[in-house]
C-alpha cells in the first residue's frame, strides 16, 4: 500500500464525497485519519476552508452542489457552518470600525475642512508675517536637522531591532502553540483530607489550556450515574450531573472534562455524590501560569 500523504485536492474530493467509497484510496485515508493526528488536522483545515469558500460564494458550481448535497448532510457540519457564518459576521463587524481620524461628511478628514473654512488673508502685512514665521521656522528646522538625522538613524536601528524581536517572539509563540496541549489531565485517586505532610494533587494550567480532563477513582465499584461539583472556599463553581461511572472488579472511574475558567488559583475540590448517598471530597491545588 502506498504511504504517501494524499494531496489537498484529493482530500477535498474526499470531503465533497466524490471518491469511490469502496476504493483503496478512501480506505487508506480512513485509516490514516484515525491513526495520524497531523493528517486528521490537515483534513480539518481543508474542511473549514470549504465552509469558508461556500460562505463567501467563491466555490465552483459543481463544488457548491457537492457541499449542498453531500458535505452538509451531517448535523455536525451544519453546526460548523452556523458557527463559521456567525464568526465571519462578528469579525467583519469588529474590523468595520477601525480607529483613526474622524471623517467629514464629504469623506475628507476634518482638518482639511478646517483649513478650507479658514478666513482669507486680507492684508499683505498678514502675508508678510506669515512668510517671516515660515522662514524662521525653516531656519530652526535647518539647525536641528543634523542632530535629528543622527537621532533618526539611531531610532531606526532601534525600531528595526524591536521589530525583529517582535517577529521572533511571535514565532516562538507559534511554536509553543503547536506544542502545548489544550487539555490538561488531573488524576484524583484518593478522597478526603490528606494527613501529615502529604501534598494535595497539583494541577498546573498553561496559558493555552482550555479544558481539564479529570479522572476520579472511586473507592467502591458501584455502577450508576454520579453528580460532581467543583468548589473553592466553600463556593460551588461548576457542576455536572449524570456522569456514568466505568466499573470493573478493580473499582470505578469517573471521567469528565471541565473548562479552565471556573477553576480558582489555590485549593479546589470536587465533591462527588450519587443519588441521596454520601458525598466524597477530592481536594487538589491549582496553579495558573
Amino acid at each position, binding site marked *: 500500500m502506498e504511504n504517501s500523504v494524499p494531496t489537498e485536492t484529493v482530500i477535498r474530493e474526499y470531503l465533497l464525497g466524490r471518491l469511490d467509497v469502496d476504493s483503496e484510496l478512501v480506505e487508506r485515508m480512513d485509516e490514516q485519519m484515525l491513526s495520524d493526528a497531523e493528517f486528521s488536522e490537515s483534513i480539518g483545515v481543508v474542511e*473549514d476552508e470549504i465552509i469558508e469558500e461556500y460562505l463567501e460564494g467563491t466555490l465552483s458550481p459543481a463544488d457548491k452542489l457537492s457541499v449542498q448535497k453531500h458535505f452538509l448532510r451531517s448535523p455536525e457540519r451544519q453546526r460548523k457552518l452556523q458557527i463559521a457564518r456567525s464568526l465571519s459576521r462578528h469579525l467583519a463587524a469588529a474590523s468595520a470600525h477601525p480607529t483613526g481620524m474622524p471623517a467629514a461628511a464629504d469623506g475628507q478628514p476634518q482638518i482639511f475642512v478646517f483649513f478650507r473654512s479658514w478666513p482669507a488673508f486680507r492684508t499683505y502685512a498678514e502675508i508678510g508675517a506669515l512668510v517671516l514665521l515660515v522662514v524662521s521656522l525653516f531656519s530652526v528646522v535647518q539647525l536641528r536637522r543634523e542632530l535629528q538625522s543622527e537621532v533618526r538613524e539611531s531610532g531606526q536601528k532601534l525600531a528595526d531591532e524591536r521589530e525583529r524581536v517582535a517577529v521572533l517572539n511571535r514565532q516562538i509563540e507559534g511554536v509553543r502553540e503547536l506544542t502545548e496541549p489544550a487539555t490538561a489531565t488531573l488524576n484524583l485517586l484518593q478522597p478526603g483530607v490528606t494527613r501529615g505532610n502529604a501534598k494535595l494533587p497539583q494541577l498546573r494550567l498553561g496559558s*493555552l489550556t482550555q479544558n481539564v480532563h479529570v479522572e476520579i477513582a472511586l473507592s467502591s465499584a458501584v455502577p450508576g450515574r454520579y453528580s460532581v461539583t467543583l468548589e473553592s472556599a466553600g463556593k460551588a463553581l461548576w457542576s455536572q450531573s449524570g456522569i456514568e461511572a466505568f466499573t470493573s472488579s478493580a473499582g470505578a472511574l469517573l471521567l469528565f472534562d471541565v473548562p479552565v475558567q471556573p477553576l480558582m488559583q489555590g485549593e479546589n475540590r470536587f465533591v462527588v455524590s450519587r443519588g441521596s448517598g454520601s458525598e466524597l471530597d477530592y481536594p487538589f491545588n491549582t496553579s495558573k501560569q
Partner: protein
Amino acid sequence: MLGVMSTEPLPQKTRSLTQEAFASFLFWLSPYPEPAARQYLDMRLKLVSLLVRKGCAHAEELADRTLDRVAMIVHNEPGKYLNPMALCCGVARRVWLEYLREEAPVIQEVNEIPAPHTIPDFSEQEEACLTFCLDQLSTRDRDLITQYHQFQGSQKIEKRKQLADIYGGLNKLRIMAYRIRTRLHRCVDGCVQRYAN
C-alpha cells in the same frame, strides 16, 4: 454516488452487546481500567469524526454500532486482533457501507435535506457565547483570527501572505487558525450547553 439521507434518528437496532463482552473489550484495550476507558472514549470520538467527514448524518449512532460490533468480535475471538484502531477502522467502513446500501436508501429523500440557507442564524444566546469565547482568547490569538478572516478575494490572499511571513509559513498559519477556530467552536458549544442547563 449513493444518495442523500435524512438526519432523523435511525430506527433503534437491537443491541446484542452484553456487559461481559463490553468488559472483555475494555480489558483488551488495556488491562487497567483507567487507560482502557480513556482509549474507548478516544476511539469513539475519532470514529464520530471519521463518519462526519464521510458525510454521515448519523455519525454518533454508527460509531456506537461500530464499537459494539468490535467488542463482540474481540469477545468471541480474543487474541486474534492486536491493533484496536485498525480493527475499528475496518469495522467502521463495513458499518458505513452497510448503512449506505441497506438503510440510507430507505429513508433518503432529496427534499428532506435542509437547504443551507435555512440553517438558522445564531440565537442571541449563541451570539453572547461567541462574544464571550472571543474574549477568552489571548490577545495574540484574537488578533490572528481577526486578521485571518478580515478580507475576501485578493485582499484576503495578500493579508494571509503577510501573516504567513510572521507566523512561520502558510501551512503553519492555516493550522494555527484552525486550532483557534476549533477552540472557539468547543467554547461556544460548552457555553451554550451551560446556559441550557
